[in-house]
């Protein structure tokens, strides 16, 4: 079902975008999240938008896991000039 009766994808419903963003990053509270999920169940535009956002955020997290902070850099910074102030 599509609330908007169109198969052509377009931008998400303007009033929904902040809610979709917060649903994607997990900061939407219970009622907000419930409303967002209710809406996306009937709106293909918002559903696709939410899926795309969630996918992008998951990839950012993956990239963070893959990017190791070099041990030698951490050691140098731990022993840095700031210690002379302490």
């Amino acid at each position, binding site marked *: 079902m599509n609330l908007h009766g169109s198969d052509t994808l377009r931008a998400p419903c303007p009033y929904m975008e902040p809610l979709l963003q917060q649903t994607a990053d997990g900061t939407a509270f219970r009622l907000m999240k419930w409303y967002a999920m209710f809406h996306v169940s009937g709106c293909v535009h918002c559903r696709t938008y939410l899926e795309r956002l969630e*996918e992008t*955020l998951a990839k*950012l997290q993956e*990239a963070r896991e893959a990017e190791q902070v070099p041990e030698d850099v951490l050691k140098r*910074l*731990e022993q840095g000039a700031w*210690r002379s102030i302490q």
Partner: protein
Amino acid sequence: MSRESFESVVHRELPVLYRVARRLASNGSDAEDLVGNSLLLAAKAWTSFDGRHPRSWLLRILKNEYLGTIRKRSSRPEVALDDILEPSEEGFWQEVSWKAVGNNILTELDQLPEEYRLAVTLCDIEEMSYEDAAEAMEVPVGTVRSRLFRGRRLLRARLVGVVDGLEPQQEVTL
């Protein structure tokens, strides 16, 4: 309750500081310098710090140190945030070839204007709350939200290759 020592705060927050610095600075060496200089400033200010939200406090120092450095170095024209291209709607609907993007998602993130890059880095990579990010960025929570939301859209648009008008490390003024 006794306050945590500066040394233990540094030990805990160093990876976060370096990762954020890496997103701000153009290379690993500059990022290391940025963190080193920021820690020096933080060590000097430690006795006057109230001890609340040390991560946000350290990141605020890091951000200000970064801004000071690029102001000194830069001769690039400044671009207002409003002049940054808005990604087309098309960008939301195209599939991203994740196989092709791989870990280059961070490289694409690095091409966003600094305000958006910082919001996405703090909230989506370091998983800080909007409130803590606002404290680090020294802007209201609503501003963090709008930068974050627009930054995510711009990033997505870059990933599908529909925004090519942003130059790397473009300096942005408010």
